[in-house]
C-alpha cells in the first residue's frame, strides 16, 4: 500500500499512457462489435503488425536519438503513416478473408470466432516465421535487419529521448508521456466526429442500430463493414505507433496480452460505445497500475484479467452501456 502512495503520480501517468494505447485498440473491438455483433479476436494482430511497421520504417529511415527537430518530426510522422497504413491494410484483409466468406453463409457467431482465432494465429505466426518465409525467396539475407531472429523481441531505436517537462509529486512527466496521452485523445476526438458527422460515419451508426433499415436507406452494408474494419485498424495502427514510442519493443506475439486488455477496456466502457472505449482504456490502465502496486507488479496481468471477469459478471453492459447498437434487443 505504501508503495502505491509513494509512487502515486508515476503510476497515474504511466497508467494513463498505457490506457491511451488500450483505448485506441479498444475502439477497433467496439466498432466491429457495433456493426457485426462479434468479437474480432484477431484485432490484437492488427495492432502487432502496426508495431512492426513503425519499427521497420524508423529502422529504414535510420532514426536515432540525435536527430534534429525536423528529422524527429519527419520520423514520427512516417512512423504513424506506416503503422496506420499497415494496420488498416491487415484489418481490411482480415475482414475480406476471415469474415466476409462467413457472412455470405450466415454462419453463427461462434464459428466466426473460430475463424478469427485461426486468422489470429496465422497472422502472428507469419510474423514469427518471417525469417523462414523470406528465406524461401532468398530474401532473408538482404532483409536481415528486419527479419532476423523473428521469434525474439525486436527493439526500435529511440528517436525522442524522454525529457522531463514538469513534475507531479515527485514524478517527472516527460514529453513522450504528454505526446502519447494528448495525441491519443486528439485522435479519438477526430474519430468521434467522423462517426457523428460524416456520411460514412452515419452509415456505420445506421448499420449498427438497424441493418435492415440501413439497407432501405441505401447504405451498402458490405462497404460500411469494410470501412469499419479499416477505421478500427487505423486506430490500432496509431496505438501501435504510440506504443513503440513509449515501450519501444515488440514481438510476433506482442498482440495477445495487449489485445485481451484492450478488449477488457472495450467491455469495461460498454462494448459498441466509442466514448466507453476511451473511458475503459484509461480506467483499465490506471486500475492495473494501482492494483499491481498493491499486490505486486508480477500480478499486473492477473489484475487485468480478473477485472475483465468481474465486469462481465456484474455489469456486462459496461460503464456507459452499449450505445452504438442498443437498438436491437
Amino acid at each position, binding site marked *: 500500500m505504501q508503495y502505491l502512495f509513494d509512487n502515486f503520480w508515476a503510476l497515474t501517468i504511466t497508467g494513463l499512457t498505457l490506457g491511451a494505447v488500450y483505448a485506441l485498440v479498444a475502439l477497433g473491438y467496439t466498432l466491429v462489435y457495433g456493426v457485426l455483433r462479434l468479437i474480432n479476436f484477431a484485432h490484437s494482430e492488427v495492432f502487432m503488425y502496426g508495431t512492426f511497421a513503425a519499427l521497420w520504417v524508423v529502422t529504414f529511415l535510420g532514426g536515432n536519438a540525435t536527430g534534429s527537430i525536423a528529422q524527429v518530426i519527419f520520423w514520427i510522422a512516417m512512423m504513424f503513416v506506416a503503422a496506420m497504413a499497415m494496420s488498416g491494410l491487415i484489418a481490411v484483409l482480415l475482414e475480406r478473408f476471415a469474415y466476409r466468406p462467413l457472412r455470405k453463409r450466415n454462419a453463427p457467431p461462434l464459428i466466426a470466432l473460430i475463424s478469427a*482465432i485461426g486468422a489470429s494465429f496465422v497472422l502472428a505466426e507469419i510474423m514469427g516465421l518471417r525469417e523462414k518465409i523470406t528465406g524461401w525467396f532468398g530474401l532473408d539475407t538482404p532483409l536481415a535487419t528486419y527479419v532476423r531472429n523473428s521469434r525474439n523481441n525486436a527493439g526500435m531505436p529511440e528517436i525522442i529521448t524522454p525529457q522531463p517537462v514538469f513534475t507531479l509529486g515527485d514524478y517527472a512527466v516527460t514529453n513522450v508521456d504528454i505526446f502519447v496521452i494528448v495525441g491519443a485523445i486528439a485522435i479519438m476526438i477526430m474519430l468521434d466526429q467522423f462517426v457523428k458527422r460524416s456520411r460514412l460515419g452515419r452509415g456505420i451508426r445506421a448499420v449498427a442500430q438497424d441493418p435492415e433499415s440501413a439497407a432501405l436507406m441505401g447504405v451498402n452494408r458490405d462497404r460500411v463493414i469494410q470501412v469499419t474494419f479499416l477505421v478500427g485498424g487505423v486506430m490500432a495502427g496509431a496505438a501501435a505507433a504510440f506504443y513503440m514510442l513509449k515501450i519501444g519493443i515488440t514481438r510476433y506475439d506482442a498482440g495477445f496480452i495487449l489485445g485481451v486488455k484492450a478488449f477488457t477496456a472495450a467491455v469495461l466502457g460498454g462494448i459498441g460505445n466509442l466514448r466507453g472505449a476511451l473511458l475503459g482504456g484509461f480506467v483499465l490502465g490506471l486500475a492495473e497500475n494501482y492494483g499491481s502496486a498493491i499486490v505486486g507488479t508480477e500480478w499486473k496481468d492477473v489484475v487485468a484479467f480478473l477485472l475483465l471477469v468481474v465486469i462481465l459478471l456484474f455489469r456486462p453492459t459496461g460503464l456507459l452501456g452499449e450505445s452504438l447498437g442498443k437498438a436491437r434487443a
Partner: protein
Amino acid sequence: MSYAQRGMDWVRALPKPAKIVLWVLFLVFLFALPLLNIPFITTPDSDFGGVLFTVSTYVLVALGLNIVVGYAGLLDLGYVGFYAIGAYTVGVLSSLHGSWPWLWTVPVAIGAALISGILLGAPTLRVRGDYLAIVTLGFGEIVRLTLVNSQWLNGAQGISNIPRPPGAELFEVPSLDWSSGAPVVDLSNTTTFLKFGITDQIPYYWLALSVILLVLLFDKLVKDSRVGRAWEATREDEDAAELMGVPTFRFKLLAFALGACIGGLSGALFAGKAGFISPDSFVLLLSILFIAAVVVGGAGNRWGVILGAIVVGYFPERFRDFADFRVLVFGLALMLLAIFRPQGILPPRRAVRAIEADEKLEALEEGEVRV
C-alpha cells in the same frame, strides 16, 4: 456425405456379433500399435511410444472438451487451465509438499479440477457465448500466471521428481522389425509389461489408452442419457429449452464440471509420465490446439473429436520438419474449416437436423409461415 461418414454408417449397419469381433480386433490393434512399428506410420524422429502417449493425451483432452464445446455448445478457450490444475495437484501432493504415491493423487487432481470448474462456471456461464470465450481465455491465463508467480508452487522452475504410476514387471512383450521389408518378430527389442520407467514409453500409452476407453464408455452413457438430451436442447435453443422446463444453467454447469474433471485427469496422467511440470507446459497455445482438435474433428461427435485430436497431436510429430509451421497450419485449418465445413470433418448426425430446425424457426420468427 464424406467417406468417413459412409464408413461409419457401414459399421453401424453390421450385425451385432460382427461388430463385437471388429471392435475386439481393433482394440488389440490399438494396444499393439507401438510394438508393430508399421513403416510410414511410425514416427522416424521421435520415440513412437512417446508420440502415441502424447496423441492419447490429446484424445483424452479432446473428449473432455467435447462435452463442453460439442455437447453443451460452450466455447471454452481456457481448457488448459484445468489440465494445469490436474497436473499441479499431482505435483504438489506427490513431490513438492507431500509424498503421496501417484495413484492416490489422481482422484484429488480430478476433484480439484472439478471444484475449479464449478467455481469458474457458476458465475460465468450466465454470460453470453462470445463473452464466455474471452472469460475462459482469461481464466487459462490467470492459472498460468499464478503458477509462474506463486512461490508456493515453485514459480517458473516448476515441480520435478513427480513419482510414476505404480507398475509390476510381469513379462516381456516383443516387437516387430520391418527392416528387411517384411515384419519379423524382434525378441531383442521388448517392452516390459507393466513397467513405468523412463526410457520405454509404451506402458504409459497403454495406461492412457485404457483411460480413454473408460472415458469413452462414460461419455457414451452420459450422452445417451437424459443429461445428453438436455445438453442438446440447450445448445440448439437455450430459451426454448428453458421454456420446456430444462434447467439449462445447471446442465451447462454440469458439462463444464465434467469437462474440467477429464481435463484434470489428463493433466494428472501427463504429470505422472513427464515427472516434471512447469508453467511452460500450460501455455495458451495448448488451449487453442485443444479447441482445434475438437472443431477440426467435428464438435459433438466423439469419433470426430478423436480424429481431430489425432490430427492435431500426431502430424506435427510425424512430420518434424513441419513442426515450426504447425501453429500456422492449424490457424489456417481453423479458418478454412470455419468457412467451408463449420461442422468439422465428422459432424454429429444431429447437426443436419438442427440446421433444418433453425430454418423453420427463422421463418416462424419472421411471422411468415403458419404451422
